[in-house]
């Protein structure tokens, strides 16, 4: 397994139990015992998930001998945030916009094919409609 921080973060987030643990920890730090309560899982199983989260830098655990309180580490979430950007949503949104834009392109092409003499008028119009970046 990769030790690249972001890979570890995303691998850790891919599991629903671990996400549920993080949601609980987002409310405040707590002990492993308390954390295990709402889950139908053994303490060793929960501990295993916690180790994955800790290794991914998403949580930290206190040094207190008896109850090692778990807490969330906001820094790693913020680091993932900028990079993530949600690619599926990005492409879904972009392709939906492209669908609409293709309708414009088709209409333009049909217009050119139907009346070649109007081509010049149309291309001027296109230029005035062109959106500038920035």
């Amino acid at each position: 397994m990769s030790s690249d921080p972001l890979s570890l973060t995303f691998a850790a987030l891919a599991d629903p139990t671990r996400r549920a643990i993080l949601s609980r920890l987002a409310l405040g730090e707590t002990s492993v015992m308390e954390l295990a309560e709402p889950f139908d899982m053994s303490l060793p199983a929960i501990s295993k998930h916690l180790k994955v989260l800790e290794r991914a830098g998403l949580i930290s655990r206190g040094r207190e001998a008896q109850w090692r309180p778990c807490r969330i580490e906001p820094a790693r979430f913020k680091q993932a945030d900028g990079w993530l950007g949600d690619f599926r949503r990005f492409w879904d949104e972009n392709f939906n916009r492209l669908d609409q834009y293709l309708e414009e392109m088709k209409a333009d092409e049909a217009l050119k094919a139907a009346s070649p003499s109007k081509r010049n008028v149309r291309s001027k119009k296109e230029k005035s409609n062109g959106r500038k970046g920035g």
Partner: protein
Amino acid sequence: MDAKVDKTLKITTPSELEIVMTRMFEAPRHLVFDAMTKPEHLQRWFGCEQAPLRICEIDLRVGGAYRFVMGPPDSECTLQGIYREISRPELVVFTERFSMPGFTGSEYRVATTFEDIGGKTKMTTSILHSSKEARDGHLAGIDQGVSTAYDRLAAFVESQA
């Protein structure tokens, strides 16, 4: 009327290094090809609300470079690379690298094919990474479950900060 086209974006992982996206478009492939490769078209649809496309430079030749810059100058994201194969209207191959302040991704190869299906277009984009780790990192961003969970967690974290 034409049969309804399924425009769902499909994402698969045929190997440890790949991500493949397929999508149908209700337009002939030369238009889809142009929409994907010409700045005057890309500036009309590519980008996102939070980070609109600010710079779009394309030298559409084999060996030619392209650069897309999105978002405000202090936190801009850049996609850039070199065209490797161009065959209008059926194929375009290029390398790509994503970067933003504090993060530069590794380079990957993108091959997009435009298939004519009764006057409509099936676009297939194959993304080939050089390592499974890089692919997984890219894929994690694509996985909706992870992202949704992340959004929720980020909101929690924000409220704690």
